[in-house]
């Protein structure tokens, strides 16, 4: 899909001469010039497809156990002629299928955590930046306090007590990461609220909510997208480490971190149990980070100004 639009037919090119290329077309052209970002987008698209349609991609049932084929190495072919490309685990389950199904938890926790922390953080940042003064002081102190708490340990304890579930993991992660958005948005709103655009809107009688939603939010959005992308990778790593510690979405649901925890018992005999889920995890996070790097260059207003 990406390449189709990027290479583009002569028909579309003619259209562009008349109307100028659309934002999307511009973005895709830029993307083709940056192989790392293109790689990132490809990886993310594949992972998202896995997460949405795992049944289509996975060759076997990820939960089907068979002790006759336990711990088989990559490329194993069973009596029925079915191939297990990345081998099987200690219960005879197919690693490929479990990796494909495991993308669901990683991506849903990642996106949900980004969404929840982004919503809280952007709101707090808009409020702190727009009102300033005491409101800002209170919110900023809360942010400082949250950042001063050792996060991993506290998150682990909270999940341990509330119980390991998708919601609790997202909650525990979001409890801290909202502060990142608040800091970014607050700073930008401070600059924006003195702009002619906002003073004009005020003079025209716009209310506070309207100014925030119509004038401020769209202008801070691109920075937030950059932050969100960078943090999406971190959220995915955090989720996998929780799963690794047995505090993630409980089995039998396949998770990449959970697969690594199981594989840990077989490091001396069955390396494929730990190698492949980790490769999937690393490639996904790398893809997200490469995309984030590129988005920062494209969307960050400071970088943009330099280009202009």
């Amino acid at each position: 899909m990406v390449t189709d639009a990027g290479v583009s037919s002569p028909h579309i090119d003619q259209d562009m001469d008349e109307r100028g290329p659309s934002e999307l077309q511009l973005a895709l052209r830029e993307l083709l010039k940056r192989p790392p970002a293109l790689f990132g987008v490809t990886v993310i698209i594949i992972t998202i497809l896995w997460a949405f349609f795992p049944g289509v991609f996975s060759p076997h049932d990820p939960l089907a156990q068979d002790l006759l084929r336990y711990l088989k190495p990559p490329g194993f072919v069973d009596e029925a002629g079915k191939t297990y490309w990345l081998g099987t685990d200690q219960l005879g389950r197919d690693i490929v299928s479990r990796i494909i199904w495991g993308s669901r938890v990683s991506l849903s926790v990642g996106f949900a955590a980004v969404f929840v922390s982004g919503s809280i953080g952007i709101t707090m940042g808009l409020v702190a930046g727009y009102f300033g003064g005491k409101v800002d002081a209170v919110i900023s102190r809360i942010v400082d306090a949250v950042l001063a708490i050792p996060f991993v340990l506290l998150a682990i304890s909270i999940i341990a007590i509330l119980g390991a579930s998708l919601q609790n993991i997202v909650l525990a992660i979001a409890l801290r990461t909202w502060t990142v958005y608040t800091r970014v948005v607050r700073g930008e709103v401070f600059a924006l609220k003195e702009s002619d655009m906002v003073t004009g809107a005020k003079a025209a009688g716009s209310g506070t909510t309207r100014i925030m939603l119509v004038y401020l939010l769209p202008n801070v959005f691109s920075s937030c997208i950059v932050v969100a992308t960078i943090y999406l990778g971190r959220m995915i790593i955090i989720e996998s480490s929780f799963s690794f510690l047995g505090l993630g979405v409980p089995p039998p649901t396949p998770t990449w971190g959970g697969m690594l925890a199981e594989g840990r018992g077989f490091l001396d005999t069955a390396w494929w149990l730990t190698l492949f889920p980790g490769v999937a995890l690393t490639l996904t996070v790398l893809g997200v980070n490469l995309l984030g790097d590129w988005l920062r260059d494209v969307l960050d207003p400071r970088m943009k100004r330099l280009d202009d």
Partner: protein
Amino acid sequence: MRAYIIRGLLQSLVVLWIVLLIVFLMLHMTGDPADLLMPEEATVEEVAAFKKEMRFDQPIYVQYYEFLLGHDKTKGVLRGDFGDSYYHNVPAMGLVTERIPATAILAVFSLFVGLVIAIPTGILSAVFRKTWIDHFSSVLSMAGQSIPNFWLGLMLIILFSEILGWLPTSGYREAKSIVLPAITAGLYATARIMRMMRSTLLEVMAQDFVNTARSKGLSEALVIGRHALKNASIPVVTIIGLELGGLLSGTVVIEVVFAWPGVGWLVVESINANDYPVVQAAVALLSFMFVGVNLAVDILYAWLDPRISYT
């Protein structure tokens, strides 16, 4: 300066109070702590007796007061007493403090690994900007951000312990057993220190006094070594301090991977054993250390940089 320190101290105290409040509320988050702590097959009478013994039958503000000061005014967390471990029947805090040295040793060695890689690479990539050294270091930092450190640890075990047989997979007794955990945790800190080193040095090198030093005929090595690095050191020292704080409290997963007997591993063990006093004591103590290191870094920063205002 004094006002600055006092304000930092007060803020740290507030943070610690919040942490203690969360630690206290932990057991109450699901509603009744007795449900959390008693086995499912316990009878109603047993649960009632347990509640009475643990004083869970008291109003929550009484429990909070006793949590802080103890109900016979000799114990309580403000005196460092988190009660006895349910599992080992010894004071929970003692179990935690005896694990502190292992965690501290790992943090210091990891930081050392991080510095040995990050400082030279950061300097070289700033000095030779946009050359292959710079590109290499940006690849390294991208990898550092993308590889989950516990998986890296598992891969290092497969390579150096299982295949090559050079290093032990886990343990604490031998000196060489720290190598793999320290590398794993250290590489994690490397990316951030390296980027900080590079960007700060680039910033400093663009300033007038560096040009002045060059124009009076100093060699490039002297310009960078004597003038630029000195001025770039303050933010780098700050981030090193913050990384140390992070390492002290954040190597939980790595300790589990390498069966390193530090506080992080103890927390995970205690969570699995429902041994909450130990979890509470560990979270509180590590928070205390984390906040303390951060405060020390703040003060050090103000002290090192004469330009900072203390008001």
